[in-house]
């Protein structure tokens, strides 16, 4: 058993150049496959980590995202009286009435523009999201045109440094701080006083209300209360589920893109492996005859050549994953198709992706090796021994 494995392995290592080229073909496919899934995974992780399970997002009933949602002031005020809301350190209810608008901004280092989310926040918006931390400057003062920007915004857009001024919605806004929200979507937002922003954008309604539950188990009760109360036309979601849902469309899109690209490329890689293995079988015809003469069965020959091709797939998979794992050190941005705003995130590799990529690559080896191995096993002993 061990010797047969070394037999297959050494045959691969002996024809080093063909092996490397064939494995690289497979590695390319695995790279594309893994990197697109890593992208989907990273996007999902970013959006999911944006939400916390103790928080509740309230939107207009028909709205799926904060951008589409409108909540008028009356309903928002009634929400503030709900008994399920947790109390903050200051003894006040942890609830924030927020506004979400999109503006276009110029990117750094290019002429491109992209949408950026402006979030009008309330007094508790920061305490509702403990992952959002000010890293330089200070908080905006209430009742002023002061704003703070997320770190990804500061990195990627023109004129977004501390003490700079942004002009939008007929006003100039002073940047007084930069915040970091880790790998969450908030890092790609700009925050300012909701009332000031509503005034200058001439908006009469909030977009969403965020609140913290006293206890996560109270969610179902709260949901029932709000949907049964005729004064409300609102939908209630756990913040985590809200962001998870947002990530799904994009992640699905990426996954489909990834799988279709991979399938197309993999045909090339499988054909490459097949050509390599057919050549190997042809070169080793006499050797196959010898093994059969010594008493090895057809299925052993089939197995040995298939194993060779599977190892080839394994090499390809390892190389592809190695390249793909380098992407982890890269931050990329994409359009969040729900809000059409820019979202910065990282490629994220998971054990699941590693397993899937390796399985896929080994399967390519299998697909490429099957016919050649079959041919090897079908050879006539006497004929193959005559071939020297």
């Amino acid at each position: 058993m061990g010797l047969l494995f070394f037999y297959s392995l050494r045959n691969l290592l002996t024809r080093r150049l063909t092996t490397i080229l064939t494995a690289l073909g497979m590695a390319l496919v695995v790279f594309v496959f893994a990197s697109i899934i890593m992208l989907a995974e990273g996007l999902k992780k970013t959006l999911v980590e944006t939400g916390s399970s103790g928080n509740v997002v309230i939107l207009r009933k028909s709205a799926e995202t904060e951008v589409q949602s409108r909540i008028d002031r009356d309903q928002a005020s009634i929400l503030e009286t709900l008994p399920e809301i947790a109390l903050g350190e200051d003894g006040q209810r942890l609830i924030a009435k927020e506004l979400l608008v999109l503006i276009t901004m110029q990117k750094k280092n290019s002429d491109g523009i992209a949408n950026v989310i402006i979030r009008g926040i309330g007094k508790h918006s920061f305490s509702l999201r403990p992952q959002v931390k000010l890293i330089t400057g200070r908080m905006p003062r209430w009742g002023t045109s002061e704003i703070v920007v997320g770190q990804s915004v500061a990195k990627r857009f023109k004129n977004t440094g501390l003490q700079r001024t942004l002009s939008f919605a007929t006003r100039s806004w002073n940047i007084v701080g930069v915040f970091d929200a880790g790998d969450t979507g908030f890092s790609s937002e700009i925050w300012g006083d909701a009332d000031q922003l509503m005034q200058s954008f001439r908006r009469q309604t909030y977009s969403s209300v965020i609140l913290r539950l006293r206890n996560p188990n109270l969610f179902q009760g709260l949901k029932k209360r709000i949907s049964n109360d005729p004064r409300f036309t609102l939908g209630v979601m756990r913040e985590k589920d809200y962001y998870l849902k947002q990530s799904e469309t994009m992640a699905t899109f990426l996954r489909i893109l990834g799988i279709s690209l991979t399938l197309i490329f993999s045909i090339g890689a499988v054909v490459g492996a097949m050509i390599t293995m057919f050549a190997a079988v042809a070169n080793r015809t006499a050797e196959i005859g010898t093994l059969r003469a010594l008493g090895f069965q057809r299925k052993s020959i089939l197995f040995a050549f298939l194993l060779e091709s599977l190892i080839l797939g394994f090499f390809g998979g390892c190389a592809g994953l190695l390249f793909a794992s380098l992407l982890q050190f890269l931050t990329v941005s994409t359009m969040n198709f729900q809000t059409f705003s820019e979202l910065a995130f990282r490629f994220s590799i998971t054990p699941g992706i590693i397993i899937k990529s390796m399985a896929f690559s080994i399967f390519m080896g299998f697909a490429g090796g099957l016919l050649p191995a079959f041919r090897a096993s079908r050879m006539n002993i006497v004929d193959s021994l005559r071939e020297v």
Partner: protein
Amino acid sequence: MRNEELILSINNVFKSYHRGSQIVRVLENISLELERGAFLALMGPSGSGKSTLLNLIAGLDYVDQGTIEIDGVDITTLSETDLARWRSVNVGFIFQFYNLIPVLTAFENVELPLLLTSLSKRERQKHVSAALSVVNMEDRVDHYPNQLSGGQQQRVAIARAIVTDPTILVADEPTGDLDRISAENVLDLMDRLNRDLGKTIIMVTHDPSAGKRAHSMEHLDKGVLNHDL
């Protein structure tokens, strides 16, 4: 008497090959008997069917007609799978071009047939070392075939042929690719295997000096055996 025992009995064997629509009749009504411990040289001109007959005896190919009995087993009745198993136990092969596996060391090449037995790794190693010392190659165990001369490769191949202690050794032009001195060495070795270890050997050759080293000779001519010589 053990030595008088028949080990091979070929009865009325016919064999032909199809080449396109043409039928090439290679062996015509061959009958032959051999005792245990014999050393037979099968001679004859090129294309006379020597290799074909040897392949039939070694269980690499099927007869069209007739029977081949080896050590009491009619191998013409065996299925392909059983025949392969039978070969692994009963036949040692020596080829003109040695047919060693290039990616395996001398040691591993000799070990190869033992993978088909139930021997443990330790026992396999013992057998391999013994076989390699018979052919005087124990100092080259880690060498790959391309690091050995033709004569040395053939000696490793002979070790591979005897390592399973088979019933018969078949050799098709074992010296055909060797210089005179190496050829003499290989023939000496085969002589020793036959005399000292009692191996039954059937050797195809068209080199008369090689043929003389055998203890009996059969001549094939156009697919017919001539017992006269």
